[in-house]
């Protein structure tokens, strides 16, 4: 048996790593990876509370989070490709103009 708080601490650590990566990284793809890391941290919380409450609704929520994450990855990577075509760079500091 593992205390519920251990799972919550682990998911908090993963979320904190995701936030830190989102803030300190300058490559747009790595920033996107950090967002996926944050989503994974949240999913762990859902599953841990589902196990504690003996309810499967948390698993369904994780399912929907994964669907939205997959859709977001497809659209986001398409946006990254479009940005790279026009700017020729992946550095977010060089993508600071709305109009080219």
């Amino acid at each position, binding site marked *: *048996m*593992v*205390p*519920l*708080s*251990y*799972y*919550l*601490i*682990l998911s908090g*650590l*993963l979320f*904190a*790593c995701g936030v*830190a*990566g989102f803030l300190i*990284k*300058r*490559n747009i*793809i*790595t920033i*996107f*990876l*950090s967002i*996926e*890391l944050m989503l*994974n941290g949240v*999913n*762990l919380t859902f*599953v*841990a509370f*589902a*196990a*504690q409450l*003996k309810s*499967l*609704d948390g*698993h*369904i929520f994780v*399912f*929907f989070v*994964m669907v*939205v*994450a*997959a*859709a*977001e*990855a*497809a*659209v986001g*990577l*398409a946006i*990254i*490709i*479009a940005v*790279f075509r026009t700017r020729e760079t*992946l*550095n977010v*500091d*060089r993508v600071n103009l709305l109009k080219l």
Partner: protein
Amino acid sequence: MKIMLHLVLFFIFAAVCVGGAINLLAQKHPINSALSLIVVMGSLAMIYLLLGAEFVAAIQVIVYAGAVMVLFVFVIMLLNAGVEERTAQGSRVATVLGIPGLIIGLSIGIWAVSRVTGLDKIQIGGPDVMDNTAAFGNPQAVGRLLFRDYLLPFEVTSILILIAIMGAVVLARREE
């Protein structure tokens, strides 16, 4: 004995998880970051199995570590992304106070979660989950819930994915 094994397995996979997440931050090349994120997702799938969430563990490996990360690696190689360049010196306050502030904040958060709320008294995922007499979280149980109580959200999801596919095609198309 079984209870100890459960705790030991949790600590092994949690250590791999946090190590992979820190490696994601430490690596300079995006492909290394993507591969360490796959490590994080794989060990998270093992932790889901410890919690009795078989279906979630399976789709974690298939959808996340499989499909989504293949998409990421494909785009990284398509764009020929190299080592990230450092631009724009950050604020000095963030450089000096960032790491200590993070440690203090995480410590307070961990203390609050484990002591104040009393959540450390609750034990979950014991041998009853491992023996699987309750059949908790297997595809049959999840499917029954998904296609009965959550049928409308499930169907709406298909529209979301359709829109995402069309959006991806339109955005990534080369303009004439």
